[in-house]
């Protein structure tokens, strides 16, 4: 019996294991917390509008309408990269984008929207971040695609890019349209 190649085989095995680990980590970001809410009803919310605390906006105002809930804040750097994409694509998306201003100073948020533009149909403010916990938000930006039945279909953790719109949002929007008719 030839035992000469046993160490080599052991080395190859370990190398293959490490290689698998590296490629797995590249393809599956370990920093992304998988949302258990996908396929489940979106949490109900009722929050004051940004800059107009007396007027409220909630899930009941959206009944039967699909929408994209976009968590943003003026303190969030990645939101600045995301913002031009939302500005450019909101028409093409064909569904309202609800701005979810997360743990922000209202004045800062208003100034931010004046400076970079306002792609949102409505902006609601969650200063304490209570509703955000219900949505499982743990940072900004995050986005939730909610269908006409109020079910969360997709969650994006991090900035929405043109690729996310083309390969994640649009196919799902097309599928959702098919279901309604």
């Amino acid at each position: 019996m030839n035992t000469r190649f046993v160490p080599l085989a052991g080395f190859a095995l370990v190398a293959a294991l490490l290689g698998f680990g590296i490629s797995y980590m590249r393809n599956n970001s370990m920093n992304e917390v998988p949302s258990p809410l996908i396929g489940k009803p979106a949490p109900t919310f009722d929050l004051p509008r940004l800059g107009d605390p007396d007027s409220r906006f909630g899930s009941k105002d959206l009944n039967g309408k699909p929408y994209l809930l976009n968590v943003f804040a003026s303190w969030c750097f990645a939101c600045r990269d995301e913002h031009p994409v939302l500005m450019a694509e909101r028409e093409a998306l064909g569904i309202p984008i609800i701005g979810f201003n997360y743990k922000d100073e209202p004045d800062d948020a208003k100034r931010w929207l004046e400076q970079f533009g306002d792609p949102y149909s409505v902006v609601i403010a969650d200063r304490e971040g209570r509703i955000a916990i219900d949505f499982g938000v743990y940072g900004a930006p995050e986005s939730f695609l909610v269908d006409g039945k109020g079910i969360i279909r997709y969650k994006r953790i991090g900035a929405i890019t043109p690729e996310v719109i083309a390969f994640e949002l649009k196919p799902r929007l097309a599928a959702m349209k098919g279901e309604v008719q």
Partner: protein
Amino acid sequence: MMHGTRSSFLRALLLVLALLTPAIACAIDALPFKDRAEEQRFQNLARQLRCLVCQNESLADSSADLAKDLRQEVFEQMRQGKADAEIKTYLTARYSDFVLYNPPLRGSTFLLWFGPLLILVIGSAVVFRIVRRRAAVPRNPPSAVSSEDDW
């Protein structure tokens, strides 16, 4: 002489460390605990939960904004009389099993829980086989050590 200085240095070091510990323990927001038992229950629970922003810290240790909010939430739910398990269910419903430092036992975590045991069993079997084979080889001829082992 030497011994004396070293021990007094150690004593001073210990004193400094002892003074530092409460400061570290209190780095976390002051929640209005009604007694020591409640605080201990809270700390125990918070240590089992992961901070989602800085994922290598527990909820008890993290100074992230979200961790603070979640500690507040945990505290309030404790006050509402919820059991630890109910609070954990509340959090996993929103943030998945990821918030638990102790992963639950289920199909997808089977390898995680029993993988080490499996490796131990396989390793023991290999060692057992080698030992048995060596025992079967007659001891006296030292020249029988094969040159193949010379790498």
